[in-house]
């Protein structure tokens, strides 16, 4: 028995819609089996994972808080990935954006004015973009592999932040603990509806960014250029597009959005810099980008689903004692199923009965 894929002449509209639901059904089934094997009631477990976090207003706010950075980063990454620029260092750009944006409230706390917050956001954007420019320039200029350089720069950014908050930027009133001073009132990103929860304007930024990029990618020449270069650099060259400039463009966009996510998170949700400001948002956003099929609107949905699985994981941990490792393994499964089901959009799957492999292929494979 062998699986064979037959490419569909065009994307299947039916499966474009059906695939996420199919994936969800498969995940639920596999999850139920897993929870059953662990001795938990599958229905209760799945309820806590996917329903419980949606039932209360404060929890919806938390969903927005958690989803905002994921969506912001992921829509930026979609531009990179569509143009086949493998930026996997968004985590580093997030951190540097947060650091650059924090210069005013940390180094010049005396500057108290309404102008501080807009400046912070701009500096965060600039910081993230500048940090993303490093792998971009190295790739455009020296053809250096961007996957590796952007990843290495993540570790460097983490250590740099660590050094800052333990050294020069340490809170002078903080008993030498590793954190900066708390941001003053003018430097805090306001909450959207302070009465009901702590979702801040970062979520609005994420929505706006997603809509704008959706428009750019699907309705403008620039979007066309991104996709053409991604699908075939040669065709792009014939059309007069420069893939070198596209590298820079894609990295700057995604770095800027990651930087904005960073400063929004620090200013809106944390209120100061500390040694760790991100639980891996930059990496999780890569998954979100692909879950959303690199489409900014799909990314909004994917970001919300992934954020939900984090909240649900906590709810399940508290309520029925499912450990956080189970939650992580469960997330992994969810991703596998979503990725696998998306295959149906582009391909028809046929099961072929065969007894033997291609003789030459089998021989070639003694790796």
């Amino acid at each position, binding site marked *: 028995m062998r699986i064979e894929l037959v490419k569909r002449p065009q994307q299947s509209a039916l499966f474009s819609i059906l695939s996420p639901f199919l994936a969800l059904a498969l995940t639920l089934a596999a999850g139920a089996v897993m929870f059953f094997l662990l001795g938990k009631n599958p229905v209760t477990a799945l309820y806590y994972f996917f329903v419980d976090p949606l039932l209360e207003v404060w929890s919806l706010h938390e969903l927005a808080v958690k989803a905002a950075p994921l969506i912001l980063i992921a829509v930026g990454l979609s531009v990179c990935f569509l143009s086949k620029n493998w930026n*996997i260092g968004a985590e580093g750009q997030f951190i540097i954006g947060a650091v650059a944006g924090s210069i005013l409230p940390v180094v010049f706390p005396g500057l108290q004015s309404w102008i501080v917050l807009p400046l912070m956001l701009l500096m965060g954007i600039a910081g993230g973009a500048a940090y993303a420019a490093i792998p971009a320039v190295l790739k455009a200029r020296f053809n250096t592999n961007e996957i590796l350089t952007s990843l*290495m720069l993540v570790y460097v950014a983490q250590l740099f932040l660590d050094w800052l908050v333990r050294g020069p930027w340490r809170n002078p009133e903080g008993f030498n603990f590793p954190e900066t001073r708390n941001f003053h009132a003018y430097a805090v990103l306001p909450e959207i509806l302070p009465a009901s929860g702590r979702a801040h304007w970062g979520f609005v930024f994420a929505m706006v960014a997603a809509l704008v990029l959706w428009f750019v990618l699907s309705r403008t020449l620039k979007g066309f250029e991104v996709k053409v270069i991604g699908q075939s650099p040669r065709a792009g060259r014939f059309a007069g597009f420069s893939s070198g400039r596209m590298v820079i463009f894609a990295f700057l966009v995604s770095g800027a959005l990651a930087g904005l996510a960073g400063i929004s998170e620090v200013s809106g949700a944390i209120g100061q810099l500390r040694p760790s400001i991100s639980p891996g948002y930059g990496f999780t956003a*890569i*998954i979100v980008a692909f879950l959303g099929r690199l489409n900014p609107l799909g990314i909004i949905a994917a970001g919300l689903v992934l954020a939900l699985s984090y909240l649900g994981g906590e709810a399940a941990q508290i309520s029925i004692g499912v450990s956080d490792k*189970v939650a992580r393994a469960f997330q992994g499964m969810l991703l596998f199923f979503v990725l696998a089901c998306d295959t149906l959009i582009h391909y028809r799957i046929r099961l072929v009965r065969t007894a033997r492999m*291609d003789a030459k*292929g089998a021989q*070639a494979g003694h790796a």
Partner: protein
Amino acid sequence: MLESVLITIATAATPLLIAAVGELVVERSGVLNLGVEGMMIMGAITGFAVAIVTGSAWIGVLGAILVGAAFALLFGFLTLSLVTNQVATGLALTLFGLGLSGMIGEGFVGRPGVKLGQVDIPFLSDLPHVGRLLFGQDPLFYVSLLLTAGVAYFLFSTRAGLTLRAVGDNHDSAHAQGINVVAVRYLAVMFGGACAGLAGAYLSLVYTPQWVENMTAGRGWIALALVVFASWRPWRVLAGAYLFGGVTIGQLHAQALGVAIPSQLLSALPYLATIAVLVIISRNRRLTMMNTPASLGRPFVPER
């Protein structure tokens, strides 16, 4: 003292080398598997658990290799049979592996492990200065060297190696020549998984014989970096792994000698060094192009 420093560096380099050589074969076949960390941590818990249950570290090593390969098979099924995106699938594999290993490992926390014994060749290992370094290390150290040599020989001196590289360079023309591209890639991916599993077992059976969650601590990612750092050449992977090990250990020695540099800067050195070397290597465009598998990361679906 120099000898024992070198042995320490070898211990730090060996797991990186094993995992990276495996991934090198995978990438040479045109597949990018970012799930090395996930397969490695599965190898670490399997090796540890099997060794404790059976009392034999060697059976643990075997189990780790099998589980690493099985995990790679899952990756292969998704990316090769269902042509899912390799980057996303690899990341999902890492997430899944970190979670699952933690689940399996819950009962093994805080238990001293079984340590894989050291090779001790009589007389030779007593030689002054180099005896222990060359003849008295753990068996997997020798395995890692043999593996490197074997992969180098296989890739560049055998017909099958040529086939594998052909698949990685241009899967369409390889397919046209009648090569079963998907089968070759399956085997390469599983070999990479087996190596990652072995590297994980090295951590939990030799390096620090114990089980703790997330004990791979990013070494899978370093292995991925080494492959590119080495521009897909096995012996350069070896050089890179030892260089990386050397910088890691060297910064600890520098500290113990009282060199006053911010420790964060010292910790960042290996990463900055990797970037610098990447830039230097890739400036020579012709050389890089020659070694880079041209089909790396591109999905393949046989045309009917």
